[in-house]
């Protein structure tokens, strides 16, 4: 009996050791030269399941790249968005970033750049790639004049509207802010919620504030306040806050917006209860090709540019938006040159097919005459080529802690809990505090 128990125990201990040993990382595969072939480690966040189209394009690009560069092999690792973010963080703390990977602009990549983990990509840009990017997109990936990431996606935010509802009440697409207010008032009187908004997510409301700031004070005023060459207590930024509260008082937004998520807000627009919806162009598939949404509705969605404010300095062709994900090259990569070559190749090929195959607008210019697209896409792309300015989403521009303050203040502003002047002052305080650090 004793002997048997002892054997069992030993077996258990042995098993446990094996299990624990399995946990410890032995994933130290050599990156760099293996045999005669060089290996580029590449991590992306478009798994086959959830981002089928993107995944296909990526696989295709890698195949082409390997065909053209016989001595290079690209090793791919795919993770879902959140897992990807986590893994990148873990890898960076042990300095084991993949040679090429995805990053987000401005605030997100700041700690990586400061930690000298990303390589500067200026040489790639200056090697002829610069002109193919839409103005304002690579800037979001630059720190102190050096660019550390090349954007793949670009999103701008137009106001989508329901043509049927507009027709029913004889409304025209507004070009100026007073026309826009007429539209809001007419809709409100007729019991239609003028604007769909889910402000629990807070950045949704920030879009409205940003556009008003842009149209009243011009495209630079908000940027300057954030990069500290100006002040957030600029009269234009205060009066933009004031306009937001006026809209709220006019019942321009659907009821209870501060407690609804963006998806809930969006559904007010999708089911025809609200007439307008200000959102990024990532929604375009929902209004064109997505079969899950009734065709009847999809055919009736149009968009217009945020109207100009009378007496304001803003230009109607100035957009709020931002690049989505971009590519980085790791600073301590052993195959840096090949990695940069791969990034360049990727950006070029991606720009050629992303919008047509996956509905993703690339950060590089698209020739609309060469691609087959739904009309709504073509219109947006044409507007994009005319764009005079692109202001990056405020919460992306700001550092993480200021962004939280901004988003919370936006929610209070829409909820009427903070006065426009205090709204500006609290921003100024937070920005000053950050600057002092």
């Amino acid at each position, binding site marked *: 009996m004793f002997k048997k128990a002892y054997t069992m125990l030993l077996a*258990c*201990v042995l098993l446990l050791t094996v299990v624990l040993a399995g946990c410890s990382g032995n994933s130290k595969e050599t990156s760099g030269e293996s045999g005669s072939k060089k290996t580029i480690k590449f991590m992306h966040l478009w798994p086959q399941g959830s981002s089928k189209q993107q995944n296909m394009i990526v696989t295709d690009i890698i195949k082409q790249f390997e065909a053209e560069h016989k001595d290079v092999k690209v090793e791919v690792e795919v993770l879902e968005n959140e897992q990807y973010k986590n893994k990148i963080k873990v890898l960076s703390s042990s300095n084991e970033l993949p040679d090429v990977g995805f990053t987000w602009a401005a605030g997100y990549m700041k700690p990586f750049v400061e*930690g000298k983990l990303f390589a500067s990509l200026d040489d790639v840009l200056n090697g002829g790639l610069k002109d193919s990017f839409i103005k304002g997109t690579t800037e979001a990936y630059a720190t102190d004049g050096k660019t550390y990431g090349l954007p793949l996606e670009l999103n701008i935010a137009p106001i989508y509207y329901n043509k049927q509802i507009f027709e029913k009440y004889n409304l025209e697409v507004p070009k100026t802010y007073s026309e826009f207010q007429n539209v809001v008032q007419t809709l409100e009187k007729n019991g239609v919620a003028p604007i769909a908004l889910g402000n*629990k997510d807070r950045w949704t409301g920030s879009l409205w504030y940003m556009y008003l700031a842009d149209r009243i004070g011009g495209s630079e005023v908000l940027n300057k306040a954030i990069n500290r060459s100006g002040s957030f207590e600029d009269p234009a930024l205060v009066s933009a806050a004031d306009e937001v509260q006026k809209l709220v008082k006019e019942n321009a937004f659907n*009821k209870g917006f501060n407690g609804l998520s963006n998806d809930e807000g969006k559904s007010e627009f999708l089911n025809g209860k609200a007439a307008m919806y200000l959102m990024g162009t990532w929604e375009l598939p929902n209004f064109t090709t997505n079969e899950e949404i009734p065709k009847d509705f999809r055919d009736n969605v149009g968009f217009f540019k945020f109207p100009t404010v009378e007496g304001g300095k803003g230009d109607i062709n100035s957009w709020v938006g931002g690049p989505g994900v971009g590519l980085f090259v790791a600073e301590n990569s052993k195959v840096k040159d090949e990695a940069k070559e791969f990034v360049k190749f990727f950006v070029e090929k991606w720009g050629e097919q992303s919008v047509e195959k996956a509905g993703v607008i690339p950060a590089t210019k698209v020739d609309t005459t060469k691609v087959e697209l739904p009309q709504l896409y073509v219109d947006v792309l044409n507007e994009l080529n005319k764009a005079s300015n692109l202001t990056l989403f405020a919460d992306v521009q700001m550092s*993480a802690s200021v962004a939280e303050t901004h988003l919370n203040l936006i929610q*209070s502003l829409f*909820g009427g*809990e903070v006065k426009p002047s205090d709204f500006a002052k609290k921003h100024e305080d937070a920005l000053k505090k950050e600057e002092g650090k």
Partner: protein
Amino acid sequence: MDKVMSNKKVIALYIAPALFLVLALIYVPIVQTGYFGMTKWNGVGAKEFIGLENYMALIKDEMFWKTAYHSLMLAVFSVISLIGYLFISIILAGKIKGADLLRKIYLIPMLLASVAIAQLWLKIYHPSNGILNTILVSLGVENPPSWLAEPGLALYAIIVPIIWQYAGFYILIYYAALKNIPESLLEAARIDGATPWQIALKIKLPLIMNVIKVTIVLAVVGSLKYFDLIYVMTDGGPNGSSEVMASYMYHRAFKEFDFGYGSAIGFFLLVICLVVTWIIRKFTAADENVY
């Protein structure tokens, strides 16, 4: 077999794996969190040791005390709700028809995942299509509140589903404790002419006092570290009006990338829970079981 069990080495060997896992997965991280709280760290770069600066800032942080107050409100309401559960359990444990079915009905919310409960209540509270406001409108209320969007209401609107969520759990505990009371005691009381009310108050209640104390500790500590429904339903909003300590910790660490400060909050939260548990224990020192 006895011989094996009395061998000290064997005992140590048997205990070792569990002890090792508990140490490695719980106690070591606790100490680490305490240490991270003493650093300035954005989660990516190097940690910079700054001593007790985070903890000092925390004590002066108005937002933190606001969230602590919200957590306290949650704890208070959870404890008050225990009275209701106790009452229901006494009725269920009495011999009424359908007690078994009712017990199951009460237990079901506990079987649902928190996220499912959150989604369910989000639909109930929806400002225009929600069942709650639909009923209010049909009752003639002109402008029913949009529950989760109003700073003064959001916290209380979330406390309701939290209390609802745990009803089954506490009722089950009380029910089991009540069923454990020897029938002979109750029968003796009945022969002596005690009314059902007297039996409940003077006999059943004192006999399950120890269980009640445990549930109070569970309810209070559970409330202080509560996170899930709040995260899904309002994410602490609007503007922090439903933020509790745990969600505040999450926001500081994972949204603002201030892992040093987040760790300090986490460690402080642990200290608060320990102190509160100790206080409750002190005031309700356990008696010996009398039967």
